[in-house]
């Protein structure tokens, strides 16, 4: 018999409740594996959190992941509304290892494709769908499971080294969140938020400056707005200032340190955002508010064109600004005064001291030497005015009125511009006021009376009388000459001395005659003058006078000859 034929040794086994089959190991192993898998699943199953969103655009329940640094750490399980249907609540199951990161301060946001001026982001979500991203924040808040999603992704992750500063600006300009921050034309940060300040007077920006550059922010640092394009036409030609294309579109902030400013660390996280680099540089002089001087000046002229912030200049250098313009009752309370408040930076007028008293004393001395405030035209086109501090020693003496309210009053002089304008106006007014009609009427009347005068028979007679007087004088001279001629030398020789004496007597009367003739001529002249030049009367009179003068001269010569040589009458010259 072969081995095969041998009967198998039979092992008796109990029929019921007998030995367990080895096959039972299989389900045990399966159970162990399944249990292990289940345990692993539940052990990695983290907390469930709720994220409140404005809308669920791009989110899908069961599909949208929650990612941190692009690693999935959770998944949106369901989307529902809150009680008021105001928000969407995304319930997400997070993995267990982020459990203790889920604290207040953690920020969630939806990553969607974004196309902005500064770049494209979230492009991968175009195909894969949106996802929720998280930034854990400081990680020191209380544990929570309810979060509110931020409408915008935070521009800077919370763990980025750097410094966050707040800027305050009067005008926001084109600056928008996401705009770059430049330091020496290197992009070093971002504008994160833009909001109206609590008091509603200013725009506040939150900036984040990345680590190595954030050390550059100290007391000397000034921020200014680099939005848009700066075009400057100066002595060096045309200058175009564009910080970057992104800055052109979204605005930008530039900061730099100014050596002029006092060095030192700045603990303050709030800075002023200046409108331009120039303004930022100007601000350096506004350093010490205690040293600032506030003065007022009263202007008699219109201050149209003088606005708040208008410069106060001294010989072309800005030394302050106009802080405000008010109309206040004058001293007599019946008049009104225009009072401009001037904010003067004493450093700019050469006063270094920070003591307001000494600064004021300096201004007082300057005023005594002739410092005056005056309105000046900044632009002929716009009519903008500014306040000029001028040295006017010729101005009437005045002093700084320290008692004036609210601030010491700086005496002012009328503006040249205004004086010029005033004079032109005055001239025009005078021209306007000229009584042209009356003038013409009186001129006509005057001419009429002249005519009437000329027609007066008395006047006509006057030259005749003169002629008569002259002929009489000539007759007298003729008489004298006749007496000369009639003298018979031979006969009269004997009687020479007596005759000479007689002639002497006669001659002594001649000067009086000449004087009288002269007087008459002068009178006649003045009379003729009155008749005006150019008239026929005048010419005649002048001719007559000329003759009269000649006559008078001839008489005077004769008289002199007779006085010197009385015998010349007899013996000739």
């Amino acid at each position, binding site marked *: 018999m072969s081995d095969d034929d041998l009967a198998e040794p039979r092992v008796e086994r109990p029929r019921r409740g*007998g030995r367990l089959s080895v096959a039972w190991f299989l389900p045990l192993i399966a159970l162990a594996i399944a249990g292990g898998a289940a345990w692993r699943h539940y052990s990695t199953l983290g907390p469930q959190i709720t994220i409140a969103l404005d809308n669920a655009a791009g989110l899908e329940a069961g599909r949208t992941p929650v990612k941190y640094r692009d690693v999935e750490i959770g998944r949106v399980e369901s989307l529902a509304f809150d009680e008021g249907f105001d928000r969407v609540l995304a319930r997400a199951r997070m993995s267990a290892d982020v459990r203790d990161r889920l604290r207040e301060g953690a920020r969630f946001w939806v990553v969607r494709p974004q196309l902005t001026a500064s770049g494209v982001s979230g492009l991968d979500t175009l195909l894969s769908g949106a996802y929720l991203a998280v930034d854990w924040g400081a990680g020191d808040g209380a544990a929570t499971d309810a979060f509110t999603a931020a409408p915008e992704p935070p521009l800077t992750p919370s763990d980025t080294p750097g410094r966050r500063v707040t800027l305050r600006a009067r005008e926001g300009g084109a600056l928008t969140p996401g705009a770059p921050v430049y330091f020496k034309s290197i992009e070093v940060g971002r504008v994160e938020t833009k909001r109206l300040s609590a008091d509603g007077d200013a725009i506040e920006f939150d900036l984040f400056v990345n680590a190595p550059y954030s050390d550059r922010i100290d007391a000397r640092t000034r921020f200014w707005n680099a939005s848009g394009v700066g075009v400057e036409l100066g002595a060096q030609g045309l200058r175009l200032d564009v910080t970057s294309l992104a800055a052109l579109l979204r605005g930008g902030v530039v900061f730099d340190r100014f050596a002029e400013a006092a060095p030192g660390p700045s603990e303050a996280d709030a800075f002023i955002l200046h409108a331009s680099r120039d303004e930022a540089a100007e601000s350096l002089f506004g350093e010490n508010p205690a040293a600032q001087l506030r003065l007022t000046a009263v202007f008699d002229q219109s201050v149209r064109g003088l606005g708040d912030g208008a410069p106060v200049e001294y010989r072309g250098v800005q030394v302050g600004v106009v802080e405000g313009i008010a109309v206040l009752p004058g001293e007599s309370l019946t008049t009104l005064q225009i009072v401009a408040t001037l904010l003067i930076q004493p450093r700019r007028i050469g006063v270094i001291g920070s003591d307001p008293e000494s600064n004021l004393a300096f201004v007082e001395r300057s005023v005594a030497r002739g410092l005056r405030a005056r309105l000046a035209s900044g632009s002929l086109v716009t009519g903008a005015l500014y306040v000029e501090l001028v040295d006017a020693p010729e101005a009437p003496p005045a002093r700084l009125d320290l008692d004036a309210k609210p601030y010491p009053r700086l005496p002012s002089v009328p503006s040249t511009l205004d004086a010029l304008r005033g004079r032109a106006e005055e001239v025009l007014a005078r021209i306007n006021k000229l009584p042209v009609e009356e003038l013409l009427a009186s001129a006509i009347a005057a001419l009429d009376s002249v005519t009437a005068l000329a027609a007066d028979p008395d006047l006509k007679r006057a030259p005749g009388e003169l002629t008569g007087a002259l002929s009489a004088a000539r007759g007298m001279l003729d008489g004298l000459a006749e007496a000369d001629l009639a003298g018979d030398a031979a006969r009269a020789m004997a009687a020479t001395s007596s005759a000479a004496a007689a002639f002497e007597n006669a001659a002594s009367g001649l000067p009086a005659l000449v004087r009288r003739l002269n007087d008459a001529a002068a009178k006649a002249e003045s009379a003729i003058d009155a008749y005006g030049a150019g008239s026929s009367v005048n010419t005649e009179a002048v001719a007559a006078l000329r003759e009269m003068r000649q006559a008078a001269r001839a008489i005077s010569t004769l008289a002199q000859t007779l006085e010197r040589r009385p015998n010349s009458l007899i013996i000739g010259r």
Partner: protein
Amino acid sequence: MGAERPVTGGGVTARDLGLIGCTECALVQAERRARCARCGARLRRPDRGSLQAVWALLATGIIAYIPANLWPMLVTRSFGRVDESTIIGGAVDLAAHGAWFVAAVVLIASVAIPLCKFAAIAWLAIGIARGSVRGLHGRHRLHALVELIGRWSMIDVFVVALLAALIQLGFLASITPGPAAAPFALSVVLTMLAAQRLDARLIWIAAEGRAR
């Protein structure tokens, strides 16, 4: 030769004659032999203890079937978008897209049939253990049916394997088998083994033992 019994229907079993049939080559030989005289295969005597193995395999199959349905069967990546679908979820998606026929095929092949198989094997095993004499022919036919269908239950796994092999377009679209594929295949294999281990002869022997 005993009296005519209803279970054998007038026929005679090898066991009645102290013989044993080889399950491989069907040679009937002396029961005391350990191996088949012709093909050398181990001769398996109908043993109710083998039911334990059936139960164990069935239980493992059922356990494996649970993750097969909970985990995703297919992972579809298209344009970077990852889509994971479980068997039932995929069928529901198909139905939602209007592919009712395909959805029905998937549901029947992957859900209804395995579940029915579990139930059928369990029922058969319980019937044998209790030596039930009722519906012997029906149970026998059911066993044949379970064995026949068993091999077709892998259709789901085949579909996944085919899709995974065909659709590999990189970023555009790609399909990979999900973690459920392995337990599903395991479940099918285990239930097939369970059905195989269930000795149909026991149905009759148990009934016979009762009848005796």
